[in-house]
């Protein structure tokens, strides 16, 4: 039943990603060239609204479906790792104009070429799994 609920909430996810245009390669290029406020607006509003909501949920000690209160444990701080990993991801984001969510959503929008992005992401994930111990932590 819970899986069905996640399927149902996935539907607005696909619609929101499409209609807010964050799946557009052109929007991502425009963002990295600082030629429009659009992407900064979308992400900025999402973050600020998210911060307020999480603050309220934590303060009100709201219980989630897993029966626990809203909590978040950040990954251990390692500046070198975060910057390196983020940069690798950013290079791919600038090339494809799509992060993982938009990849799936673009596929639903009928862009079959995105199967190549997904294949690339699959291979990249596999490669990371194979060299995980060799990467600076």
């Amino acid at each position: 039943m819970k899986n069905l609920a996640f399927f149902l909430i996935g539907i607005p996810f696909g619609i929101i990603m499409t209609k807010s245009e964050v799946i557009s390669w052109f929007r991502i290029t425009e963002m990295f060239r600082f030629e429009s406020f659009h992407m900064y607006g979308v992400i900025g509003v999402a973050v600020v609204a998210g911060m307020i909501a999480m603050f309220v949920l934590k303060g009100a000690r709201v219980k989630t479906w897993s029966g626990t209160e809203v909590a978040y444990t950040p990954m251990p701080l390692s500046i070198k790792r975060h910057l390196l990993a983020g940069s690798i991801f950013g290079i791919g984001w600038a090339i494809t104009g799509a992060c993982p969510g938009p990849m799936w959503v673009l596929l639903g929008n009928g862009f079959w070429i995105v199967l190549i992005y997904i294949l690339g992401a699959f291979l990249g994930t596999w490669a990371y799994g194979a060299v995980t111990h060799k990467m600076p932590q």
Partner: protein
Amino acid sequence: MTILEWISQPWHWAVGGLAIALLSVAMTLMGRKFGVSSSFKVLCSWAGAGKKIPYFDINLKDNRWLMTFVAGGVLGAIISVHYLRSPEPVAISQSTIDYLAGLGIAYPESDESGLGFVPTVLFNFANWKGVVFALIGGFFVGFGARYGEGCTSGHAITGLSHLSLPSLITVIGFFIGGLFMTWVVLPYLLPLLL
């Protein structure tokens, strides 16, 4: 104007941002965190990567929610393209249009899909250089997301909402890589790939 026509218009960025925050809150209340890149890890496990690499030896049952969420996302996109399609292509700024035209990538209007989501002149199955480039781009996304333990949704949205410092530094990394590519590499590389 019908409600469908109203939703079909391009959304203001504030509406998009609020909708994403609502989604992230809903998933939090459902006991999970908004984040999509782990779906590729699950794909690797499905493909049998866990037999050789312990990193992929995960309990697939714990990840079913994510894969059904992603499947819902694909269905949502199918609904968008059939019933909520914008009358106009993505309205990017004139300076971006001019810059891309100079590289040989025309304004989305001439995109065969007419949406302005994918630069189909570059990324199409008839252009092998574009296909290889797309594969490389995807590889970086997949590798970076796992090494960084999250992507745009997990770090930029969920992590920052929880004031996580590692997420903030990772997002700065997204921009270091993205700005380097966009300003230093792509202006010279893209024309060679068309």
